[in-house]
């Protein structure tokens, strides 16, 4: 959701920590198949999983969302548009008043597809780029990917789609391009959406090289404070320890207001923790998604009071809430301690204490293709 919702008083935030009747921000990755191979892919996507939900099963999931009054679902992948039944699922969802916000690399948004999308209600589109120009973007997302994303934006604009979103993962290489990214969005009348780089999936391998420096984090924080209309999906709440809170709920919503359904129907606590440790169940289980959301032991645990651990004595804990669970987990840090990008530097200290050879969590869900785009390759 992205949790693109207005700031609310603390009392409501406390209610959110205890969980909701259904998620506000439900991410659904439709396929692990992807025609790109971004070096920071959260889900290590590439190859389709043979066990992915069938069209009938996917429609069953949509029926559940409609019954639970999930007002909209954030669809991603992989590249969701490579699923042959993508438009069938899109129509099925909006027909049941489950709005769809989908993230795409844009490669499949041809002129006719753009017109088809423009004719639909309750569809929002996020085109991903990770730089304001081809060299910066293509170093992360692969050669030609910036040009493809621009073609998609041009096609949507020509089709009169209306306001789409341009979604950017912030990296050391593109933080200096914040104004240029805002300019790109303005050019299309689009909304800019910035999200945090996580050391999840292939992002674990590239996080060291890509994650913003401490000085860049401060720049980003002040840039965002001046621009409350820029969407962040509540990504940067760890930066709220730098001063006034950023727009949004400013809490980790994992299992409380947020969760992920992956392409094989597995339900995880959030889109950034595709790992057995955060696997709550499957939509294929008896009772379906609703049962997993309401009663899985993992989600019940996440909704119970959490220990602030090493952060308990820090005066900024109320502001940053200890940061992102996924960022801690995949850098080998304890969950009840500082975020690796803690703005007070406690994360760096904790990482240094772990040493260079600390074991990091391994994943069984890697769908990367054998040959990958190399970081730094010029487009």
């Amino acid at each position, binding site marked *: 959701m992205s949790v693109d919702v207005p700031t609310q008083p603390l009392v*409501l935030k406390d*209610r959110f920590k205890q969980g909701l009747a259904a998620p506000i921000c439900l991410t659904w990755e439709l396929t692990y198949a992807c025609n790109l191979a971004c070096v920071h892919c959260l889900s290590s996507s590439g190859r389709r999983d043979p066990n992915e939900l069938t069209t009938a099963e996917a429609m069953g999931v949509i029926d559940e969302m409609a019954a639970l009054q999930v007002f909209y679902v954030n669809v991603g992948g992989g590249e969701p548009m490579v699923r042959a039944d993508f438009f069938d699922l899109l129509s099925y969802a909006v027909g049941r008043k489950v709005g769809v916000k989908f993230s795409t690399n844009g490669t499949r948004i041809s002129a006719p597809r753009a017109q088809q999308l423009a004719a639909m209600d309750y569809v929002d589109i996020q085109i991903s780029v990770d730089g304001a120009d081809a060299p910066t973007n293509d170093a992360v997302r692969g050669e030609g990917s910036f040009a493809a994303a621009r073609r998609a934006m041009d096609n949507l604009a020509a089709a009169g789609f209306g306001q789409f979103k341009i979604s950017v993962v912030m990296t050391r290489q593109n933080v200096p391009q914040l104004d240029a990214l805002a300019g790109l969005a303005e050019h299309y009348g689009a909304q800019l959406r910035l999200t945090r780089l996580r050391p999840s999936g292939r992002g674990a391998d590239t996080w060291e090289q890509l994650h913003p420096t401490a000085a860049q984090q401060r720049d980003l924080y002040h840039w965002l404070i001046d621009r409350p209309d820029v969407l962040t999906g509540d990504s940067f709440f760890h930066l709220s320890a730098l001063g006034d809170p950023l727009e949004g709920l400013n809490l980790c919503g994992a299992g409380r207001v947020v969760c992920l359904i992956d392409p094989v129907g597995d339900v995880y606590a959030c889109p950034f923790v595709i790992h057995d440790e955060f696997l709550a169940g499957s939509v294929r289980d008896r009772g379906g998604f609703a049962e997993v959301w309401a009663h899985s032991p993992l989600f019940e645990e996440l909704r119970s009071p959490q220990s602030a651990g090493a952060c308990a004595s820090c005066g900024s804990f109320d502001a940053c809430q200890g940061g992102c669970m996924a960022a801690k987990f995949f850098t080998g840090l304890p969950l009840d301690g500082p975020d690796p990008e803690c703005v007070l530097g406690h994360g760096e200290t904790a990482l240094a204490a772990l040493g260079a050879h600390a074991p990091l969590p391994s994943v069984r869900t890697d769908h990367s293709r054998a040959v990958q785009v190399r970081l730094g390759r010029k487009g």
Partner: protein
Amino acid sequence: MTNAAPVAERALFDAALAWRLHPQVALRDEAFGALAYHYGNRRLVFLKSRALVELVRSLEQYGSAADAIDAIAPPGEAQRYRATLARLCRSEVIDVR
């Protein structure tokens, strides 16, 4: 993509008029009250008490918002509920019938 009226055309809140839940808004009950989602402007709004949810759902049955507030708002809370309805009018959760 959105069907929201421009700000200038939106009705200002007048408790003497008859109101209703906006036809493009869906309510989902939650322990704290309800979530209201507007399918036109895509905004999510939180209704932060059960009584408020009941009030919003019941507006349609009363000749005026003031009558609905009198019937449903807890004693001494009428002014606060009136202010909240004005806020919900601005975010188009409710509209004039």
